[in-house]
């Protein structure tokens, strides 16, 4: 019974195995299989019947990476289409050649060590046949087939990745610099404002204390000037960044300019030792801008040099260039900051109390202005506390006989004039009026346009200062209507019209000129410019008729404001 069962079991087992073998043969015969697996001396060998490789082939040929199989010596045994594209060589010319030929010299040692090691990853640069360079990641693996050792090298093009990365880094840096700048701007504005507020308080309480009053006045003046300089810097840097600075270049006595600019500092900054050595040299430049360059660099040296420090200013000719050097023995510049020192909003840490202030835009302005003058500016510093040396090179030109610096005389007091002020800001109007009255002028004023035009017509002042942004009738309209009447007062003498505005752009100046203004003053009004303007009008033009535009504009020398180049747009 038991034997019978065993025999039956055996038969069943044999039958099943036979069935399985038959089934296998049937599957093979009917083509249902892809591959045979055969035991070989080196383990299993898989013999694909057909097209088993093709999908891999397609995958490898179409992938974004370059794929190569190298001999251990580094010859290319196989490469995909993508690799041939990367190195710009026809596929048929790549195989058989050396891989090393496509790798730039500097990266070859690294490549060779990876090739020898047989595995690992590394960044490298490929030199394509068409002259392009491609940043790539090399990734090595090793495989052994039929006792033959090969290197599989996958090459990933990372150039786009690097570009995207650096773009992102730059944007992040800029955004951070901007945030820091805003914080600093608030700080820089608050400092002078708090000084002014305190000084006003002193003026209110210091009755009879003449010295305190004088000191408070002095501080208000200095801090207001400082605020005004901050705003000028901001406006300038905006123009520099957008490339809107137009230069008015002429032959310029650079030596004289440097000497005068340095003198301002040597008089004011008595806590520092100055040494100024200048030799005669002329350049072709815009006087205002060149002075800005020089005073920014010297000012920078003062800011970053502690009390008692030494600042050396030298000027000479080297190889046809005027070379200005400003050296200090101050805080110096760290190696990390050095390459970015001319970038916008970048500035060094100061251990001082920031009493000098600054927005980190001065050196950006300097570099841009120097470049606009076809020159270069560079900086050297051995590191922190080793001082700095700034060098400006500008092309030298032959000297011109006359001194390039005109109208630099002392302020001229004007004789008494009848003056109209049209200004809607009460405080500004009141202070402006006081300033003129203290100087002996007879002043009338109006706070809006219609009243202003009325006074202009009936009171016949010698000079009218008109704010361009007024409620009702704006300043341009007043000038236009008044000039349309004949441009003169009832008694026939010519009234000098002066535009008051916060805008100093060439467009703004041109607009004032077209409206019929004779002059354009930028707020805050520089007292010296004001006196000069009033005294230039000693002899009113005896005419009842508006002079032709060209003649009106002859007094161009008197156009005041930071944007001197703007007057060129009128000619």
């Amino acid at each position, binding site marked *: 019974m038991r034997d019978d069962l065993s025999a039956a079991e055996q038969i069943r087992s044999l039958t099943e195995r036979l069935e*399985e073998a038959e089934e*296998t043969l049937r*599957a093979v015969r009917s083509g249902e299989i892809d591959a045979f697996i055969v035991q070989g001396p080196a383990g299993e060998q*898989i013999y694909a019947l057909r097209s*088993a490789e093709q999908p*891999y082939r397609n995958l490898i040929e179409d992938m974004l990476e370059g794929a190569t199989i190298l001999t251990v010596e580094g010859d290319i045994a196989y490469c995909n289409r993508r690799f041939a594209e990367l190195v710009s060589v026809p596929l048929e010319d790549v195989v058989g050649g050396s891989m090393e030929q496509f790798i730039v010299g500097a990266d070859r040692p690294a490549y060779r060590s990876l090739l020898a090691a047989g595995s690992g990853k590394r960044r490298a640069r490929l030199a394509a046949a068409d002259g392009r360079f491609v940043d790539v990641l090399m990734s090595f693996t090793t495989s052994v087939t039929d006792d033959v050792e090969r290197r599989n090298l996958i090459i990933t093009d990372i150039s786009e990745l690097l570009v995207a990365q650096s773009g992102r880094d730059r944007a992040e840096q800029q955004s951070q610099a901007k945030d820091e700048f805003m914080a600093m701007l608030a700080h820089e504005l608050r400092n002078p404002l708090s000084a002014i507020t305190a000084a006003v308080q002193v003026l209110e309480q210091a009755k009879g204390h003449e010295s305190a009053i004088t000191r408070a006045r002095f501080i208000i003046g200095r801090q207001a000037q400082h605020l005004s300089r901050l705003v000028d810097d901001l406006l300038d840097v905006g123009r520099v960044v957008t490339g809107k600075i137009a230069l008015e270049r002429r032959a310029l006595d650079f030596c004289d300019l440097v000497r005068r600019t340095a003198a301002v500092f040597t008089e004011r900054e008595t806590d520092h030792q100055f040494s100024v050595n200048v030799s005669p040299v002329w350049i072709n430049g815009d006087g205002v801008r060149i002075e800005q360059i020089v005073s920014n660099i010297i000012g920078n040296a003062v800011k970053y040099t502690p009390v008692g420090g030494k600042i050396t200013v030298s000027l000479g000719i080297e190889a046809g260039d005027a070379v200005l050097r400003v050296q200090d023995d101050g805080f110096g510049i760290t190696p990390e900051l050095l390459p970015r020192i001319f970038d916008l909003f970048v500035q060094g840490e100061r251990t001082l109390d920031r009493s000098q202030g600054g927005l980190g835009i001065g050196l950006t302005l300097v570099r841009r202005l120097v470049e606009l003058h076809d020159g270069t500016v560079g900086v050297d510093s051995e590191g922190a506390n080793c001082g700095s040396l700034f060098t400006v090179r500008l092309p030298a030109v032959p000297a011109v006989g006359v001194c390039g610096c005109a109208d630099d005389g002392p302020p001229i007091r004007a004789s008494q004039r009848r003056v109209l002020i049209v200004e809607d800001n009460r405080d500004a109007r009141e202070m402006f009026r006081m300033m003129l009255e203290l100087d002996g002028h007879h002043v009338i004023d109006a706070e809006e346009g219609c009243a202003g035009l009325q006074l202009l017509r009936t009171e016949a002042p010698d000079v009218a200062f008109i704010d361009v942004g007024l409620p009702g009738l704006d300043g341009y309209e007043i000038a236009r209507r008044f000039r349309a009447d004949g441009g003169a007062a009832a008694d026939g003498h010519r009234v000098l019209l002066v535009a008051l505005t916060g805008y100093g752009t060439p467009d703004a100046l041109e607009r004032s000129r077209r409206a019929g203004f004779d002059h354009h003053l930028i707020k805050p009004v520089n007292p010296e410019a004001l006196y000069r303007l009033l005294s230039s009008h000693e002899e009113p033009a005896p005419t009842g008729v508006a002079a032709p535009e060209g003649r009106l504009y002859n007094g161009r020398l008197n156009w005041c404001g930071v944007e001197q180049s703007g007057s060129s747009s009128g000619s």
Partner: protein
Amino acid sequence: MSDERYVLKLYVAGMTARSTRAVENVRAFCEKHLEGRYDLQVIDVYQQPALARTEQLIAAPTLIKKLPLPLRRLIGDMSNEERVLVGLDLVART
């Protein structure tokens, strides 16, 4: 009997049309007849040749029923549902 767990291994040779079809067929078959009571592993003999040796494979695709015993091997792309049902002992042999 019907809640017995099936442990299946499908051996394929790369990504050929037949291999991918075998994977599809086996998965569909299992969902239809063995829903919730099967474990299926798909092994590419190119990627894991060592596994092929232990199974004594001679061709691919091969489907192996490890459990329930007895062990069964089926060769081909498993496109014939009847044959797979028989091969996996899900219907009696004739």
